[in-house]
């Protein structure tokens, strides 16, 4: 297993709960990260991005006025987005299948189910470092390639259709464990 030194990476933490921000920041500092910036919601984070060159964004889902999903879409497709390619880790208690698919389709790189653990967070950071993903512009979507695994059976947009079927067409969805979330994203 490769151990990475993260001290040169800049992290932007976006969460409306100051205790959760402190927790993520504390974990990152313990992992050797030197540069962390906080934002209290998506709008605040988007403002910070204009002058803070974030390498990785760790973002909560439920926030007002701009939630994590809308923030991700704004970063990916906003005309004035400072960095449409920046990797985003969505950190949330929403682990229903349709929610995971929704987050992926907004353009997040990684999805991490709360409760947070240091090992879990580092695993997501490692995945981003080790598996850089090409970006895709397809119809309304712009973001990291949602196909993480080579699949000879892939036929363009059909893949997303099968996801909709798997998630019950976006209406509800079963709770997934982090392993199941990962399997869904890797599929």
């Amino acid at each position, binding site marked *: 297993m*490769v*151990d*990475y*030194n*993260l*001290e*040169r*990476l800049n992290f932007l933490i976006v969460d409306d*709960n100051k*205790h*959760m921000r*402190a*927790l993520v920041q*504390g*974990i990152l*500092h*313990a*992992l*050797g990260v030197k540069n962390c910036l906080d934002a209290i919601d998506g709008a605040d984070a988007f403002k910070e991005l204009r002058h803070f060159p974030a*390498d*990785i964004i760790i973002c909560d889902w*439920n926030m007002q006025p701009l939630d994590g999903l809308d923030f991700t879409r704004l970063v990916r497709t906003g005309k004035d987005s400072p960095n449409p*390619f920046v*990797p985003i880790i969505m950190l*949330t*208690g*929403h682990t229903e299948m349709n929610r995971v698919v929704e987050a992926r389709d907004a353009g997040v790189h990684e999805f991490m189910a*709360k*409760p*947070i*653990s*240091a*090992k879990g967070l*580092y695993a997501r950071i490692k995945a*981003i*470092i*080790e598996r*850089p993903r*090409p*970006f*895709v*512009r*397809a*119809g309304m979507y712009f973001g990291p*390639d949602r196909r993480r695994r080579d699949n000879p059976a892939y*036929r*363009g*947009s059909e893949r997303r259709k099968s996801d909709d079927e798997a998630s019950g067409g976006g209406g*509800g969805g079963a*709770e997934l464990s982090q392993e199941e979330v990962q399997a869904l994203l890797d599929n």
Partner: protein
Amino acid sequence: MSDDESVKVITPPNTLKSRVREGGPGSVDLAALERAEAVIADLADSYLEWVEEDLEKIRRAHDALSANMDNPAEYVDAVFQIAHDMKGQGGSFGYDLMTILGNDLCRFIEGKQAVTKTDLNVISLYIDTMKIVISKRMSGDGGAEGQKVLAGLAMVVKKITSG
């Protein structure tokens, strides 16, 4: 036009790999991960202080729902949002039972179009049980006492929802 024709693939510059060093001092080894887990344990005390505010907030949301049963949508959503936050936070700070209870409460109320007195009683039971978990400092899985509390709650919920 086929969908494939409108797909454009862009390879962004991968600057991350060049900015992280592999191995050596300061890299994320087992000791660093243990330090990070210790940070979480250290913050558990502060969690116990601010979770009390959340418990009061969710009780107020329950009372507001009780007073607005004829038009419950936004009040159900308020209870759901607080329970959902508590679910994510509990286990993050070492209180796994709060995550279980927050999740079960979310599952119980999500999508409810109408709310009965029985529903209100169940919500209230969840809130009371979360209060017990916090006041008795039942961290982790709560041990035998914690499991007894969960089993007791499940039994009462079953009884009042089937009656």
